[in-house]
């Protein structure tokens, strides 16, 4: 096995930002949601495959989610999930108190032209919504690769803390 190739974390940060800006502004082609979902799921599958390469197969739902919280999160978001809650009926809430991809998000207070009124303060959750599409798709893809079909949504009401809600649907036949 050759040396693992690495790339600076800044590259991943900038790429993620630019993906959102690019798909927001282009007039033809897939919509922002569709594009980021597709990209994220594919990347999530491959990342999960890489992370889980040398491990025993994860047969339990909870085991798969714990793998996502620790190893997968560590590889992709550079830290582990801080808090995991479940209702033992297929719904899990993964809480990351310092979500690194969005820790620098802050609204621009500058008006478009000097002299114009300040922009209205927007809820951080709304500003962050587009930037959470890719992480959700990554988690969805990773779970799919591990054999679980799930719906993933994110809630960024109190940035930099982000809550990811995973609702498991059913186990996919491999």
């Amino acid at each position, binding site marked *: 096995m050759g040396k693992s190739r690495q790339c600076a974390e*800044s590259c991943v*940060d*900038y790429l993620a*930002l630019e993906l959102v800006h690019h798909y927001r502004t282009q007039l033809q082609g897939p919509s922002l949601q569709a594009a980021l979902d597709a990209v994220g799921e594919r990347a999530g599958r491959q990342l999960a495959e890489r992370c889980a390469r040398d491990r025993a197969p994860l047969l339990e739902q909870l085991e798969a989610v714990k793998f996502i919280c620790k190893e997968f999160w560590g590889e992709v978001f550079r830290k582990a999930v801080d808090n995991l809650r479940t209702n033992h009926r297929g719904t899990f809430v993964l809480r990351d108190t310092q979500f690194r991809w*969005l820790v*620098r*998000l*802050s609204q621009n207070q*500058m008006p478009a032209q000097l002299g114009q009124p300040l922009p209205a303060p927007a809820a951080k959750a709304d500003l*962050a919504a587009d930037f959470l599409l890719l992480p959700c798709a990554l988690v969805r893809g990773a779970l799919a690769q591990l054999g679980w079909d799930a719906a993933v949504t994110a809630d960024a009401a109190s940035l930099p803390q982000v809550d990811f809600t995973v609702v498991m649907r059913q186990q996919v036949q491999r």
Partner: protein
Amino acid sequence: MGCMTFYIFNRKGRCQYYHEWQRLKPIKQGAGSQDEDFKLMFGLCWSMRALATAVDPKNPSKQQMGAPMRIGDGCSFNSIKTSNFKLHYLESPSGLKFVLTTDPTVGSMVEQLQYIYASLFVELVAKNPLYTPGDAFLFEPFSAALNKYMRTLGLLS
């Protein structure tokens, strides 16, 4: 109080960020309006850089006007000291110009400006998803971090 004003200009001359801690002479008596002040400040830095490159007795290569250069390459002035204030200047490789005016008694601020660029601007502004490169900005975390840094340097009480 040591630090007075702080500007960030982009490559095209647009002032992206301006902060003043202490400006005893109001702009009306100086440049006339905020816009004029920005234009004059940018013009000063541009001309100084061009002059310095022109009279430079050391570096033989000819630099093109407006082309981005590595920090330290070519000829760029570091500071201008007058009897009332000292103007510190840093130009990033991407053409961003950081201008800080302080008391004349302050020493060299080259490393401090580097820190402001690398650890404050890049981390808090360039990596902010809501920042559009080239536009004027006002981000609370950046302003707070800048004030905090000035305080640790002892330039802001």
